[in-house]
């Protein structure tokens, strides 16, 4: 197990000081986020090319999405990003209680987001608005409407799975924060989980207009 007591300002021996360790951890996370953007990038390319090849299909597909759900989810994610930075802010100010509260609100926002996503998915699955070959919605105008839903489920599904992973990581941060492991000298895990959570928010910022608001 970890024998370095970072809460007390200690750091691994191969770093010059605790700040050096902190910066190096963040550098690693930023590199990881780069690979995440490129993974999502493949799906954005698919969206971009298919929507240019079959504009009518994409406009028709977007009609079966309710922008109100998308808008609520955007607000929920933005709020959760705000409470995430507050978690770091209160850790920096040695306020463990408010740090735990902020992170807990972030986690609740994650649950709300996934619940709304569940409502949307359930409605579409019931209508037969499914990806590719599974598509079975009788009133489709475009013959390849299943293509839109392949893109839709892949993009929102990969994004949703990131939300779930983020929620697990935030829960881990809450448990550690409750034990008093974070203070102004050491809060690296919250900072790094925060960066990941903001990336998930960033991707949704683009997904919302692309999937819900096209004409």
């Amino acid at each position: 197990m970890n024998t370095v007591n970072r809460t007390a300002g200690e750091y691994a021996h191969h770093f010059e000081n605790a700040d050096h360790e902190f910066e190096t951890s963040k550098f690693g996370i930023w590199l990881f986020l780069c690979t995440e953007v490129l993974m999502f990038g493949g799906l954005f390319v698919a969206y971009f090319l298919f929507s240019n090849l079959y504009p009518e299909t994409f406009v028709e597909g977007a009609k079966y999405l309710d922008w109100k759900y998308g808008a609520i989810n955007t607000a929920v994610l933005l709020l959760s990003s705000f409470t995430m930075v507050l978690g770091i802010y209160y850790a920096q100010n040695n306020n463990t209680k408010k740090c735990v509260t902020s992170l807990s609100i972030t986690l609740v926002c994650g649950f709300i987001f996934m619940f709304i996503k569940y409502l949307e998915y359930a409605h579409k699955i019931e209508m037969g608005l499914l990806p590719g070959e599974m598509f079975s919605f009788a009133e489709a105008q475009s013959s390849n409407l299943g293509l839109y839903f392949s893109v839709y489920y892949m993009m929102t599904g990969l994004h949703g799975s990131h939300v779930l992973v983020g929620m697990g990581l935030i829960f881990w941060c809450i448990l550690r924060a409750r034990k008093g492991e974070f203070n102004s000298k050491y809060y690296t895990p919250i900072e790094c989980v925060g960066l990941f959570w903001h990336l998930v928010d960033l991707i949704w910022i683009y997904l919302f207009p692309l999937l819900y608001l096209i004409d």
Partner: protein
Amino acid sequence: MSAHNIVPFHVYRNVLLALLALTVLTVLVAKPVSGFDAGIFNFVIAMAIASVKAGLVLAFFMQLKYDNKLFLVIIVSTVFFLALLFGICTIDILTRPALTSTL
């Protein structure tokens, strides 16, 4: 700049308010919602608003404005590789002979 920069609370609050306001704006200028139509610029406007929001999240929530500028280099290279991915795939699709294309 210290590695542990503490940003004042009101900065985060103002950024959140700006992000929510921009979300309302995105919805208001969307054709399916309001009927507002700027032709081919609809897409450009939506992406421009999204990019301003992304910039705010990156600069303040992700601390880029205050942080080690090395992280900015990673982001610029990410955008560069993303542009390559988009560019090369687009060239591929646009230059395929229609008759032999399986798309």
